[in-house]
């Protein structure tokens, strides 16, 4: 069962993507959808099953063992279920979203393969295996973000996403190398004996993959991809893999000096900055991307504060409401044929807006009755005792309310004209997710949270509401994170490369100079060899005389 869950989506997805041009697109997409459902079922079965383990050797060099390893447990089980669920919903959604697209089958295959690589990372029982899944996810995101191949921004975004995450991957690779060369081939071993180096490398890797710190801009640009892909990337794979990894490796992070404070700084700063950025954005998907980064920052913050359980709660809650928001906003932009907030006004029907969208908005801003509220409260709970952390939390609540309100404000309104009908495939996932967001208010997988009373939560609710008011009033767009850092890095790289090319051409000149010198000498020889007999006799005679004198004298 474990083998099926890990490899079936990956292999089927890759195979589907490869043969997509030879198959009827719809057939393929339906196959992928059915497979996704099967994977969801199987992952449930795995979560219920007793402990399962899988292990074989990938590479064995003298003195080094590099095994592949998988183990099912509670946390992986839940995470896998979450991933599989969001995947199924995204597959459903694409059935409607791409209904008239000839590359639907290809898209859904890649989506499934992408999920498969996330599952690989989720179930992996050692760092190396996680790295493999992590890399596959990078490729998957590259293919998904770059789906619209004729669009320049998709091309740019896909390359940038791959490149920025690649920087993190190098650090991940170094962590893997370190652990393998020290014979630590399971997560437990790394957690017990891992060096600070591994912890730091993981932090960098996660920061790149989860768009933390200076790496935000790739995720913002990645909005060039299709909506279902964005939903999957933001909710339960790729970027969510970062916090998941931090949760799995929490022991080694907490052993290593300086890592947790660093996480607080990275997570907190990113969360606030991205929240502010969300308020200023003009596009729905960009706003959502900012909000994702902000929420991911909060997860990192929670880990940094020493409470991976809280991060996990937030991860699950975020998965539900962010996927929901993407799906619903996707419907709106589908109708408006645009992603600009100013064009989205009154593009949702009554039910869609009031039930589906509002639930998501409540969740993202952290208001009851949603899982988001609980997760945020848990964050408040663990921050108590430190003024700085409390201020951070309050800022986040305020900003969260602001951008949620801004989104709500843009979408609100009743349309005069009848709205274009939307496929049931596109609505059904949203309905399911809104139920889950509510359900999440009373049920949390894996962790038990501290009891939170609604009454004691008044400061945060107040802040959210005031933030909401501010968000409604604020109208001026502004930009945070223009991606300038990336451009500058590229310029530096380009300069280095120019330098190497210059050295190269100088070397070429050197070779040419050698050749010229040889040619000159050749000319000399040719000159000596074409003349009169008199000269030949003279030269020969002189040489002979020298020869004799040299030998007789000594």
């Amino acid at each position, binding site marked *: 069962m474990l083998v099926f869950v890990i490899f079936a989506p990956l292999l089927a997805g890759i195979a589907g993507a490869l043969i997509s041009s030879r198959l009827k697109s719809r057939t393929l997409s339906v196959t992928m959808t059915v497979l996704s459902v099967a994977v969801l079922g199987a992952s449930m079965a795995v979560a219920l099953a007793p402990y399962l383990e899988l292990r074989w050797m990938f590479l064995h060099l003298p003195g080094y063992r590099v095994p592949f390893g998988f183990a099912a447990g509670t946390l992986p089980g839940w995470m896998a279920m979450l991933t599989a669920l969001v995947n199924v919903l995204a597959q459903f959604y694409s059935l409607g979203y791409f209904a008239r697209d000839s590359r639907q089958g290809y898209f859904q295959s890649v989506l499934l393969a992408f999920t498969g690589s996330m599952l690989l990372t989720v179930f992996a029982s050692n760092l190396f295996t996680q790295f493999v899944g992590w890399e596959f996810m990078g490729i998957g995101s590259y293919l998904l973000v770059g789906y619209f191949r004729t669009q320049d921004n998709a091309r740019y975004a896909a390359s940038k996403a791959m490149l920025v995450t690649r920087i993190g991957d190098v650090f991940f690779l170094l962590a893997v190398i370190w652990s393998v060369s020290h014979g630590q081939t399971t997560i437990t071993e790394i957690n017990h004996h891992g060096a600070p180096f591994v912890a730091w490398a993981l932090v960098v890797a996660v920061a790149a993959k989860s768009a933390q710190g200076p790496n935000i801009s790739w995720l913002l640009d990645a909005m060039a991809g299709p909506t279902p892909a964005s939903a999957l990337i933001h909710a339960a794979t790729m970027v969510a893999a970062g916090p998941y990894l931090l949760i799995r490796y929490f022991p080694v992070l907490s052993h290593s000096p300086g890592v947790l404070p660093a996480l607080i700084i990275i997570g907190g700063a990113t969360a606030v900055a991205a929240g502010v950025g969300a308020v200023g954005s003009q596009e729905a998907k960009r706003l959502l991307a900012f909000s994702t980064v902000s929420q991911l920052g909060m997860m990192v913050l929670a880990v940094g504060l020493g409470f991976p359980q809280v991060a996990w709660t937030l991860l699950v809650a975020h998965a539900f409401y962010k996927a929901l928001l993407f799906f619903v906003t996707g419907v709106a932009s589908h109708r408006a044929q645009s992603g600009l907030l100013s064009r989205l006004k009154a593009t949702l029907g009554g039910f869609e807006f009031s039930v589906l969208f509002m639930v998501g908005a409540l969740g993202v801003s952290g208001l009851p009755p949603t899982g988001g509220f609980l997760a945020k409260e848990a964050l408040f709970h663990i921050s108590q005792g430190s003024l700085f952390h409390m201020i951070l939390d309050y800022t986040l609540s305020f900003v969260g309310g602001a951008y949620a309100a801004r989104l709500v404000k843009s979408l609100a309104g009743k349309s005069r004209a009848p709205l274009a009908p939307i496929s049931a495939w596109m609505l059904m996932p949203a309905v399911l997710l809104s139920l889950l967001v509510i359900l999440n208010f009373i049920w949390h997988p894996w962790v038990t949270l501290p009891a939170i009373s609604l009454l004691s939560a008044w400061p945060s609710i107040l802040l959210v509401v005031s933030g909401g008011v501010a968000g409604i009033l604020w109208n001026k767009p502004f930009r945070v994170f223009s991606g300038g850092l990336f451009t500058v890095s590229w310029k530096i790289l380009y300069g280095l490369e120019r330098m190497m090319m210059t050295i190269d051409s100088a070397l070429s000149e050197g070779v040419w100079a050698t050749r010229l010198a040889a040619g000159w000498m050749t000319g000399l020889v040719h000159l000596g060899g074409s*003349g009169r007999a008199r000269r030949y006799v003279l030269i020969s005679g002189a040489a002979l005389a020298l020869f004799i004198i040299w030998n007789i004298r000594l």
Partner: protein
Amino acid sequence: MMAWLALGLECVVMMTLELIPVKGAMSRWILAGGIVLLMILFPVAGVLPHLYERVMYAAPVRVIYQELVLATGLGLTGILSKDGSPVSSTLLMLTLAGGVVAVSANSWLVLFLGIETLNIGLYGLVGHTSRQRTGDEALVKFFILGSVFTAFEVAGIALIGGSQGTLQILASRVPNPALIAGLCLMLAALLFKMGSFPFHLWAPDTYEGSPWQATTVIATLPKIVAGSVIIRLVATGTFVVIPHLKEVLEIVALGTMVIGALGAWRQPRLKRMLAYAAISQVGFVILPLSSGHIGAAGVYLVSYTLGSIAVFSSAQALAGQDNPTRLDLVGALATKSRGAAVALILALAGFAGFPLTVGMAAKLYSVEAVMREPAIIWLGAVLVTGFTFFYYFRWIFPFFAAGDMKIPKAPGFGVLAISQISALLIVVLGIWSYPMIWLTQNLTL
């Protein structure tokens, strides 16, 4: 004794044939038959009475040199062109007789005699086959330089004879200025015959001016003879009294290689390129001699002979009387004289030391012989070897380029046969190592 008589008789026969009108082909067949007979006779009946030991070399190793010279002569028989008169056959026979005498001389005077006979034959050949002004120029240059060095020889023999009291070739160990000067003069004369630096200047002009047949003879026979004589003299220790013999030989070898290689590079005409290439090759014969490695020099000499016969005969087959540029050779593989083109490729590859040719083994022998010397010697040698690739490969290339080539005239049977056989031998001896190993073992005895 029989062999020597036969040698003289063969010369007389060839000369007599001039008096009665006989076809060129017939005279060449007679010449070839005679050479074959001589080759059989020299090993079995080449021993001279005891009396002659003062003038003729008696050690069994002489047979190797004699056979080498005769075999080269046999090869050259095929080279003489179809329309050549019987005169060229006679001249070749004279050259050959001189060569055989020279390599088996045990007296400086006999050596002189042999070399001069050889020279006369060569002058005759060049002059006889010359059809143009450049040919005459070639002859004049060759003749003048040759005469000058003949004079050196005479002087050298006089000095040696005077200081030794005898004209016998001896391994003298008394350093006497007159003796040293005489030996130096003789060595220089021999090096001149081999066309090595710094006495190489005549070679390119002479090669280029003479027609292919004469060029082939000049490029092979005198070098074989002089090379054999030098090898023999070094082996018997005749030159040991020269104080800087080692250094001299090293300088000469390296200089020859470098000058030849540089000169051959970027030569537009095939013949001049080959002239310089031949100069460069000679350096590798002299190189092992500097460290007294007789076997290596012998192997290289044999390989050089084979290679140059193959190169010149196949070039003649391809070019007729012309001196082609590289462009003229483009597409030669697609013409009727494909065989000659393949032979030329193989021969050039052999000269370059391409694996599985005898040239490679010979180069390895030659360089390996000096590996214990200072680094500059062997490094210089290997670097020159690398440099030679430039011109050899540069000349191999046109054969594979696309194009159509016009063969001036269908090559003669003899030329074609010789080029094929020698090219085949280059490969066979490159793979079948026994003959060369036998040679190295027996030369050093």
